[in-house]
Structure formats: structure tokens, C-alpha cells
């Protein structure tokens, strides 16, 4: 029989297991950065982010450059993809913020208990639905609906020489993404609203404020840091959403043009993460591979920054002694 662990052995062994996780994160940053380096180095760093040409054709050209590509083969200007990522996430977070704030106030302040027992599981369900199912509903239901009923023939013709409008669009991507991130935000905001000391809300009510005024002027104001944190974390989540966006957004490295007026929202986009999933087939071409790792590095660093941002945003709540 094995001798039981002594305390010292146990502490060391469990500590080693814990260190594995830390090592994994270090390795992740290191590997991705090293693999991304050729792409960033051959594109002069910041220019890599800038506009200039179509990333689809640029990535396509890289496939043909063989196993030992020359420096020029790494040419990439990722702006349409970065812009697509910012647009989809930005729109979804702005829409989701209002939506989730209203829903959170409803859950905490207004909903009768039996109704709350239905709403809360429903929201948990929305959070659990896999992104590929959202994508499937987006591409088979919402996109055809938008293509058939919301995009007029006239609009389609006016842009026929620039881009084809078929329904898969920025609009569908942003709407589906909103539904996906709203549950995440609600979870954080509801926690914060519940943690408000009852004395504060009761005090406001005693002064004659009605329930809406109590919720809005006391609870929501006190929970403001949590609302910021929710927005930041939802942003991190939506930056990394790859599969759903790749299914419903038209999947073309096109930069929607604000000058097109309303047609803007019907134009196709593609985010960085979606591009990574779709380029996975071509990953054995070194130039494509390095570009994909460069996208990964950008996503990794932004999600890292957003995680830290979310933590900082919540600090004021912690200082007041709320556990969030």
C-alpha cells in the first residue's frame, strides 16, 4: 500500500498542479506572440492594422506563396476585419446595455415572484444555447427575412456594383449577438442590484419616491460600476464570438460605409474571430498561419485588457463591501 501523503508533499504537489494553469497562460501568450511575429514584423507593426486593400484577396494570395514565403508575401492590411469586429461588438454592447438594464430592473424590482421564477430560468437558457444554434437560426430564419422584407429592390440595385445584399449582414450579426450577450450582462447587473443595502432603497421610499424612482435614482446609480463592468465583459465576449458571426454576417471582408445611409446596416462584415475560423483550412501556408496568429494575438490582448478593465470597474463596489 502507498504511504499517505505528508502535508508537505501534498502542499507541493497541489501547488504544482495549480502552477500548471499559470504556465498554460504564459505559454499561450508566448506561443501566439512568437507565431504572430513574422506577420507583424513584415507589415511594419501599426500599418498592419491600417486600411488598404481587401484582406480576403490578401489572404488568398498568401496561400499560393509556398512553404518559404518571401517577406512581401506577408502583406496584410487588416482594417476591414478590425472595423467589422468593432462594429458588431459595439452595436451589440450598446443595444444589449439598454436591454439588460431594463430587464435587470424588471427582475429585481418589478417582477412578481411567480413571474420571476419563469424569467430567470429563461435567461439562463438563453445563455446556455450554443452559438452554432444562434448562427443556424440567424442564417436560416433572420437573414432570409431581412433579405426578403427589409432590403428593397431599389437599395439592392443602388449598391449592386459595390456589394451584393442578400440579408446576411451587419444588422443580423448585431441583433443575434445582442441576444447572446444580454444574459451575461443581466447576471452581473442583477447581482449588483440585489447587493444594494435595503436601508438605501427603504430610505428613498420613505422620502416619498415611487418604485421606479427608487430603482433608478438609488439602485441603478449605486450599481453603476457593475453596469460598466457588465458592458466591458460583454464586449470581451462579443469580440471572441467566431462561429455565429461567420455564419450570419455575410462572411466577406467588407467595410460597411456609413455614407451609404440606411443600407449601411444591410452590408456584410466579418470579424477577426470569424476570419480565423474560416481560414483554418489554409493554415498550412506559413504566411496565412502567421496572419491568423496575429489576429489571435490582437484578440488575446484585447480580452486581457477588457478583463482587467472589468476588474477595475468593479473596485468601487468592493470598497463599499459588496461582494460582486
Amino acid at each position: 500500500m502507498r504511504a499517505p501523503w505528508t502535508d508537505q508533499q501534498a502542499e507541493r504537489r497541489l501547488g504544482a498542479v495549480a502552477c500548471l494553469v499559470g504556465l498554460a497562460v504564459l505559454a499561450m501568450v508566448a506561443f501566439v506572440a512568437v507565431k504572430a511575429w513574422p506577420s507583424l514584423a513584415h507589415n511594419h507593426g501599426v500599418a498592419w492594422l491600417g486600411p488598404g486593400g481587401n484582406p480576403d484577396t490578401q489572404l488568398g494570395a498568401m496561400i499560393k506563396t509556398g512553404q518559404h514565403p518571401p517577406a512581401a508575401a506577408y502583406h496584410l492590411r487588416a482594417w476591414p476585419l478590425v472595423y467589422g469586429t468593432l462594429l458588431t461588438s459595439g452595436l451589440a454592447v450598446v443595444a444589449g446595455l439598454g436591454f439588460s438594464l431594463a430587464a435587470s430592473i424588471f427582475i429585481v424590482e418589478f417582477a412578481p415572484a411567480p413571474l420571476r421564477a419563469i424569467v430567470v430560468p429563461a435567461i439562463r437558457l438563453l445563455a446556455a444555447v450554443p452559438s452554432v444554434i444562434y448562427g443556424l437560426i440567424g442564417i436560416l430564419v433572420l437573414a432570409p427575412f431581412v433579405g426578403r422584407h427589409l432590403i428593397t429592390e431599389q437599395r439592392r440595385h443602388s449598391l449592386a456594383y459595390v456589394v451584393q445584399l442578400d440579408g446576411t449582414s451587419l444588422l443580423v450579426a448585431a441583433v443575434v449577438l445582442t441576444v447572446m450577450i444580454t444574459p451575461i450582462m443581466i447576471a452581473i447587473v442583477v447581482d449588483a442590484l440585489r447587493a444594494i443595502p435595503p436601508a438605501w432603497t427603504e430610505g428613498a421610499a420613505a422620502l416619498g419616491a415611487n418604485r421606479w424612482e427608487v430603482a433608478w435614482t438609488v439602485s441603478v446609480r449605486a450599481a453603476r460600476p457593475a453596469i460598466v463592468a457588465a458592458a466591458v465583459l460583454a464586449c470581451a465576449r462579443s469580440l471572441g464570438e467566431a462561429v455565429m458571426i461567420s455564419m450570419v454576417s455575410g462572411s466577406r471582408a467588407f467595410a460597411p460605409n456609413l455614407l451609404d445611409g440606411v443600407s449601411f446596416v444591410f452590408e456584410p462584415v466579418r470579424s477577426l474571430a470569424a476570419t480565423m475560423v474560416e481560414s483554418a483550412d489554409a493554415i498550412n501556408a506559413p504566411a496565412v498561419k502567421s496572419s491568423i496568429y496575429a489576429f489571435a494575438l490582437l484578440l488575446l490582448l484585447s480580452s486581457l485588457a477588457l478583463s482587467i478593465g472589468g476588474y477595475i470597474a468593479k473596485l468601487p463596489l468592493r470598497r463599499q463591501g459588496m461582494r460582486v
Partner: protein
Amino acid sequence: VAVALGPSRRRSDSVLRWRIRHQLAFALCWSAGLALCAIAVAIVGFMAYKGAQYLRPALLVEHPQPGLDQAQTGGFLDPILGTALLTVIAILVATPIAVGTAVWIVEYGRPRWLARVIESAIEVVAGTPDIVIAIFGLAIFQLPLLAPLSFTASGGGVFGRSFFAAGAMMSLIALPMVYGSTREGLLAIPARMREASWALGKTRICTIREVLLPQVRRNVATGATLGMGRIVGDTAVVVILLGASLQLDPEGNVPGVNVLRGTGATLTTYVYNTSPAGEGNAPQKAYAAAVVLLAIVLVLNGAVALIGRRS
């Protein structure tokens, strides 16, 4: 007239007597809450309807076949097996590591700075997009050292794609959930439990094994189930690290291990590839597989609620 005792605020605070602006805001909150319910019901209802339309029992036991006609592309037995296999591998890797880490952080946690670094590392893993974790896994499993664990081309090129690779990276996705849940459980155990055990002469590790771990079993189960939900629903890791091939594609000739070294698909990639966004455009098959996928996720969700309610 009876004097209102207790919670009389509701009676005097009738919405009908509020200012119109406040009434509008009130209505907005209600509609947001109800809209979310409606969306959830619509998604489940729609998928159930599509399932009734397209899901046939035969689909669950037939191998998928390549083909242009939806009537001839077979079922999705391989993706179901792939989902099951991948989930089992990933959760078997993730659970011991996550529980060990949680125990170390809560019960030992010295030096303090190291514990803090590891806690933040887990936060970072939780916040990293799955696609980035997948691409990181590709970099690791393409190392020549790990070549025996994955699909290798005839020319010796290492693709880094296998159940091993995908399972290892999926465990990273499930890890924060198991860790968080176990940690909560350990923190909730009152200090007197530990002190009583120490007073009886038990060592720390013996206390952990015989007093603390049995008490957090339920938390570990909750975390593992939540993690399984994430693994089952993840697509990006499978597309990049499992190859998303149509059938299970064993590599080598050691039975059992060859499947783990080979490529395959899961329900998520099957849905992705049969949707109009993928190569084989077969929406009926996509709907049918998506219904099965949703059912699995709902069952896992229900299990979490059930485990939570018993405690």
C-alpha cells in the same frame, strides 16, 4: 377603515398614479423582461418544431456520408460519438486539475503572491475567446515532440489535429467553471470543521480528503456539468483541433488509441458544416442535429438546477 400594517407601500404606490415618464419606464422594463422570455420560448419552440419535422430516429444511428442530396447524406452517428468522446476526455482532464488548484488556493495558498497570480491566470483563461485557445492548441500540438498524439500526414507534416488535442484544449474551457464552483464550496465550509479535524490529530491533507472534499462533491458536480455544457456547445475548438471531418477518422492501428489520435466531428461542427455557411448545404440535417444538440444542453442545464436544488 383598516389601517394598513406591514408592507403597505404597494397599495399607496400605485403605478396608475405615477408620472407618465415613470409609467413609460415601468412599461419598458416589463417589456424587456417579457421579450427575453419570448425569445427563449421562441428559440426552443422553433427548434422543437423543426425537430418534429426533420428528426428521424434513423438519423441517430447512421454514419454521415458525403453527398449533394440531403436524402443520401446519412445520419449523424459519428458527430454524436465525437461529442460524447470529446466531452468525456475534456472533463476527465479538467476536473482533477481544477479541484487540485481550488484546494491549493483555498487550503494552502502560500506564497500569497503565487496564489494571486494563479487566481488571475484562471480569470484570464475564462475570459479568453475559445478561438484563441484553439489556435494556441494548434501551436502546441504541432510541436514535433507531441506529434505521436495527433494526425500526421504521409509526408511527416504534423497537423496537430486529434481528439487528444481538442480534448486538452477543451479542458481549458471547462476548467474555470469547475474551479469556481469548487472554490465557492470550499469557502462556504465553516472553519470549525477544519479545526475540529486538526484537533483530532488529522493532518491537513487528511482533513481535505476526508472532511472537505466529501462536502464539496456537489459543487464539483455542478461545475463539471456546467463545463460539459460549454464543451458540448463549443464549435471553434473542434473546427481547428478536431478537423471537423465527416466521420471518425482513426489514425494508426492501436485499437482505442487510434480513435483518440484521429480526427472527427461533433454535433456543433456538423451543424456548422451542413448549414448554408458550410460546405454541405443540408439545412434539414442541420436542424435535426441542432435539435439533438439543444436537447443535450438543456438536459445538462436541468441537471445543474437539480444538483443545486438538492443542497
